[in-house]
């Protein structure tokens, strides 16, 4: 089977020559160079932090792989300078179709409106995403990426941690003020802090196959209940770059993994699905769903992000995307705490916001999984009723759950200031900023946010008056003589804006507060709250 890999070299680091009693001290160490760890390191480095990034392997492109990256993830990657490369390589899609037997039951469009820089989703093999992230890391001198550096020990001290790291040259130790574990579902750091990883394991087994073939299927997500080629079970078809197609087939709970995985057994199943057998296997894997999370994402100075902190079933694209949301949430907070511009308590809001998001992702993906694999005869009966009602009713279509796809979480957060004015729409505090087309120095609001410095930013709809903006707060002005134009009126509409309206955006592009007529005092108070000072 073909397998695209990128090999990286182990290099000895001067830290390894330090005396054992005097390990090198670093501000931030990130463990795990997957999409989450790499993105976090880049975000921190772009904010001026020096980051040591450790990975126990020396190559990428193996193991279970994410393929669907959300609009939110692409907007994050735009801020890291690699969004365009991902989109250029990826397969853009927004339409999903759900079939029952051979009938089309329901079709949905995840981004039915125009005027967004990024699409609802791209499909891109995880190894491409990782390779592009590594390229970006290599452009940033303040990231020190060390391959074949496996963390084998963790000592927690009062104001720092000390790591023991195994390398081809033997072990060495380093100290870190903060440690972020992005080391995946089988996180060894999680075991080292002694944390539980509790949740639910689903009995049904799924077969994933990536096959290479020339095919004319549209670039849509196709999901089948009880398809003619796989009676009684479910199936999913998705396109990836390079003429690769991802196929997921639900197997019986008692299926034997070693037998099912053999290409000679997978081939006839897929041939029935595709109607031909002109394809080559890229990758075959068998898995069971798990939905679980750590109770606390913060253990003193050790923080957990991505699959290390929470694991969901894959239907819904909530794994890698939620890990990337963890990274964007943590990066700016950790940067501020390291600079001393926010108290350490700000980090607690990483747990508050992202553990609630993990709960939501687990709830959504558990519901999808239960719908696909009903656990009792009555559950199966209810599902059958939904599928049959969907043929003639709108409500039945909407109840079919073939995976609810990842959307950015909304935070009920101590960092948000409650609305004091009257709003009919627009993103409320705790919501990620909606994009809109603008004209002038930037073509989209998300671009204007990057140009304004990816920091606390005031998005102000001009009424001609000057706004007294706190220091270190960027400004995006819409309208007025030096502001961006809003030619289609979409920015105003999406933000329910009137002349004078202003939104205070956090460095991760979330709304912290909004005002019909901002005063300096109100802005100062909202900023203090959003930076963990009150």
């Amino acid at each position, binding site marked *: 089977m073909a397998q695209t890999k990128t090999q990286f070299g182990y290099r000895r680091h001067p830290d390894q020559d330090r005396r054992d009693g005097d390990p090198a001290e670093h501000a931030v160490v990130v463990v795990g160079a997957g999409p989450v760890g790499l993105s976090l390191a880049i975000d921190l480095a772009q904010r001026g932090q020096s980051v040591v990034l450790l990975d126990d392997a020396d190559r990428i492109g193996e193991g279970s792989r994410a393929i669907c990256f959300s609009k939110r993830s692409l907007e994050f990657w735009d801020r890291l300078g690699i969004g365009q490369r991902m989109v250029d390589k990826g397969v853009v899609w927004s339409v999903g179709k759900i079939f029952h037997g051979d009938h089309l039951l329901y079709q949905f469009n995840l981004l039915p409106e125009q005027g967004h820089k990024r699409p609802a989703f791209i499909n891109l093999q995880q190894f491409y995403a990782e390779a592009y992230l590594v390229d970006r890391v290599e452009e940033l001198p303040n990231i020190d990426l060390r391959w074949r550096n496996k963390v084998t020990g963790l000592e927690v001290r009062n104001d720092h941690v000390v790591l023991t790291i195994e390398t081809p040259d033997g072990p060495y130790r380093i100290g870190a003020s903060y440690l972020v574990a992005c080391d995946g579902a089988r996180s060894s750091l999680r075991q080292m802090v002694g944390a539980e990883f509790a949740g639910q394991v689903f009995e049904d087994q799924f077969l994933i196959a990536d096959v290479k073939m020339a095919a004319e299927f549209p670039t849509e997500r196709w999901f089948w209940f009880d398809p003619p080629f796989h009676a009684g079970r479910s199936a999913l078809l998705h396109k990836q770059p390079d003429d690769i197609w991802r196929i997921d087939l639900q197997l019986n709970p008692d299926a034997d993994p070693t037998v099912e995985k053999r290409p000679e057994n997978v081939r006839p199943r897929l041939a029935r699905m595709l109607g031909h057998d002109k394809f080559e296997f890229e990758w075959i894997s068998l898995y069971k769903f798990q939905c679980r999370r750590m109770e606390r994402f913060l253990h003193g100075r050790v923080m957990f992000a991505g699959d290390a902190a929470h694991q969901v079933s894959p239907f819904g694209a909530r794994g890698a995307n939620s890990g990337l949301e963890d990274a964007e949430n943590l990066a700016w907070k950790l940067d501020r705490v390291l600079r001393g511009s926010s108290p350490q308590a700000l980090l607690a809001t990483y747990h508050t916001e992202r553990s609630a998001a993990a709960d939501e992702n687990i709830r959504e993906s558990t519901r999808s999984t239960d719908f696909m694999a009903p656990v009792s005869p*009555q559950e199966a*009966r*209810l599902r*059958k*009723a*939904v599928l*049959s*009602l969907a043929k003639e*009713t709108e*409500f*039945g279509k909407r*109840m079919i759950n073939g995976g609810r796809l990842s959307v950015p979480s909304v935070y009920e957060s101590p960092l948000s200031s409650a609305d004091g004015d009257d709003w009919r729409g627009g993103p409320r505090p705790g919501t990620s900023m909606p994009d809109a087309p603008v004209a002038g120095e930037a073509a989209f609001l998300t671009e204007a946010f990057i140009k304004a410095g990816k920091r606390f930013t005031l998005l102000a709809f001009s009424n001609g008056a000057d706004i007294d903006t706190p220091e270190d707060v960027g400004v995006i002005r819409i309208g007025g003589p030096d502001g961006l134009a809003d030619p289609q009126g979409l920015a105003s509409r999406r933000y329910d804006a009137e002349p004078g309206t202003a939104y205070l955006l956090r460095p991760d592009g979330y709304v912290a507060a909004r005002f019909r007529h901002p005063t300096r005092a109100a802005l100062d108070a909202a900023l203090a709250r959003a930076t963990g000072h009150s």
Partner: protein
Amino acid sequence: MTLSTESNFTKPDDAFRAVVEAHRGLSDAQSADLDAALVLILANHIGDIGVLREAIELAKRRMATADQQAQQQQQ
């Protein structure tokens, strides 16, 4: 809105009869299929998750009471 447990039909017997007749001649499995669809259709018509939860709770409480009575009779 809260769950209404007042008598809402002018002729409650008609409503009961309509459901009974819908099940006439069906096997247990077919009846269960019918009920599943009926519950979802009615739930959607109500369109209020609070009312639906109250209805579920009332139905379950009644089951618990019935179970207790059955146990007491055995003792």
